């Protein structure tokens, strides 16, 4: 058994629409180790959520949705499973936490019943035992007087509590992997911190791996062990949290880091100029070419591969890696004046 519980190889999710093919995810590769927290960062519309939905096979059932590649979970390709087999995996082995806790619980049932449904379905537990498990889970995620709270309905919960409820549900069957799709985006900052603490604590206690999808670099810095940076349907840089935050290689990663305020730095924020490319009409060559301050001829012609830089775990998809970093050699840039390099 390898140390990786999930290996995603060349995952592509294309949507065939009337106006053309939207390449929402276009050849994504990453691996998730047992018990680690992997962050997937990128701006809106870069394919983060579609990646997670493709893994869970929540897209791909319609004829307009084309998912290809491999999603190996403990060596088995999830993309080849039947819907029936997937139902057994979802919620039991891999579960999801969604962005909006306000609408991800069913308003017609009390919270306890919804959580208890998981062990009832997946572990065939009798009702009473499942309910006991639900109350246990609510306690675990830090809901006070959980016995009483389990009988309450979602509308009687606050936003943070609902998200805890959703997390309790996703944990109810001891999954190997939780995919958290922007779980803190809809919460205010103090609650965000609590939910992040909770996720880390649960990881430490249960050894569940977490795939954290977010656009918030603060969340990543707080929580993740490794980070993959996504841009326009591809991963452009992947590495440990130190690699990404201290030694970013890809101009996009650098741009992202520069556009976030950091305590102690009194410089002006530098936003990344321009817009991400249209996923229906991707440029030939590197997808970041239009916005990259270091763009070269090669970038326009050929797409860079995700290759190791410095160390085996730190991979970057950028021609600058071959050509040398822009800090050292500014002669390679063309077309545009670079922003002040890091």
């Amino acid at each position, binding site marked *: 058994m390898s140390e990786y519980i999930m290996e995603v190889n060349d995952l592509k999710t294309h949507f065939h629409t009337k106006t053309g093919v939207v390449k929402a995810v276009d050849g994504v590769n990453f691996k998730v180790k047992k018990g680690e927290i992997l962050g997937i960062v990128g701006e809106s519309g870069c394919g983060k959520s579609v990646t997670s939905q493709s893994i869970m096979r*929540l897209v791909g059932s319609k004829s307009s949705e084309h998912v290809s590649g491999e999603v190996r979970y403990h060596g088995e390709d999830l993309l080849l499973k039947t819907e029936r087999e997937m*139902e057994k*995996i979802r919620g039991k082995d891999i*579960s999801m936490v*969604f962005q909006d806790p306000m609408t991800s*619980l069913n308003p*017609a049932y009390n919270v306890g019943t919804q959580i208890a449904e998981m062990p009832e379905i*997946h572990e065939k537990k009798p009702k009473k035992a499942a309910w006991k498990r639900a109350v246990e889970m609510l306690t675990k995620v830090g809901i006070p007087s959980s016995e009483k709270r389990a009988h309450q309905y979602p509308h009687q919960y606050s936003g943070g509590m609902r998200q805890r409820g*959703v997390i309790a549900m996703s944990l109810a069957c001891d999954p190997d992997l939780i995919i958290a799709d922007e779980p803190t985006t809809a919460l205010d900052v103090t609650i965000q911190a609590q939910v992040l603490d909770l996720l880390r604590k649960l990881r430490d206690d249960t050894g569940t791996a977490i795939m954290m999808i977010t656009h918030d670099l603060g969340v990543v810095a707080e929580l993740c062990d490794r980070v993959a940076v996504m841009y326009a349907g591809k991963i452009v840089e992947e590495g440990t949290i130190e690699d990404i935050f201290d030694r970013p290689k890809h101009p996009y990663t650098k741009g992202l880091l520069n556009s976030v305020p950091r305590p102690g730095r009194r410089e002006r924020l530098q936003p990344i100029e321009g817009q991400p490319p249209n996923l229906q009409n991707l440029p030939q060559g590197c997808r970041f070419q239009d916005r990259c301050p270091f763009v070269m001829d090669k970038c326009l012609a050929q797409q860079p591969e995700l290759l190791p830089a410095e160390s085996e775990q730190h991979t970057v998809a950028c021609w600058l890696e071959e050509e040398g970093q822009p800090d050292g050699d500014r002669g390679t840039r063309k077309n545009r004046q670079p922003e002040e390099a890091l």
Partner: protein
Amino acid sequence: MSDIWYQFKKNKIALFGLFMTTAFIIAAIVAPLLAPYDPYKMSGAESLAGPSMAHWLGTDQFGRDIWSRIIYGTRISLKVGIISVGISLVVGTLIGVVAAYYGKWVDSVLSRLTDVMFSFPDILLALVIMAILGPSLTNLMIAIGIVYTPIFARIARGAVLTIKNALFIEAAKSMGISNVKIMWKHILPNSLAPLIVQVTLSLAFAILAEAALSFLGLGASPDTPSWGIMLSEGKNWMEQAWWIAVFPGIAITLAVFSFNVMGDGLRDALDPKLKNESS
């Protein structure tokens, strides 16, 4: 739940409807206690007697007590209402939920089918079905049930379509809950409110339809104490004995009115927009 009751209570007419509906249901259950005479018992000596202390609402041409027949008629009206609406509720909801949840061609086929049924006038369609099945009370209930099925199918479809894309449905899917379970356990309970309202309104229509079809001689056998049959027979004696037709007519009106106002009140009480205004 208490919210709904609070809203409902504010509407006095709806409250009256609820009260009358309850009264009809009780009358149907304890009919033998309320009716002083056997509704089938004929008595030549007392035929066409006007309202009196002995016969509160008079007697018909065979000397049968009108009050007793109306009380027993409640049983038939409610039975027809509940069973026929039950048929349309179950079949219609099934069609609507399946159509909306699976979408695509399933939806197209089922929706067009209900559209076709919708395009016939209610009573005409019921008449055609009765003509095929033959007159009897059971067939009457089946016919009315079929006629009202498309309404339920449409309402269920609409309700499900709005719920289907809610995040909690995707969440349920991501938790490995099967399609069938999602449909019945997660979507349907959230679409019940409009269906409940439609049930109360349809009960009124069903009672009316039963009366109309019985009036035309397509319902139960002529000696059955059904409001429609009584009305139909009473019309022949309007000049000599107005009470034979008038009192069953009042009973039909009252029942239909009660169900209708109750349904209206329920719809208002279940409307989430109104709920927000008051809180």
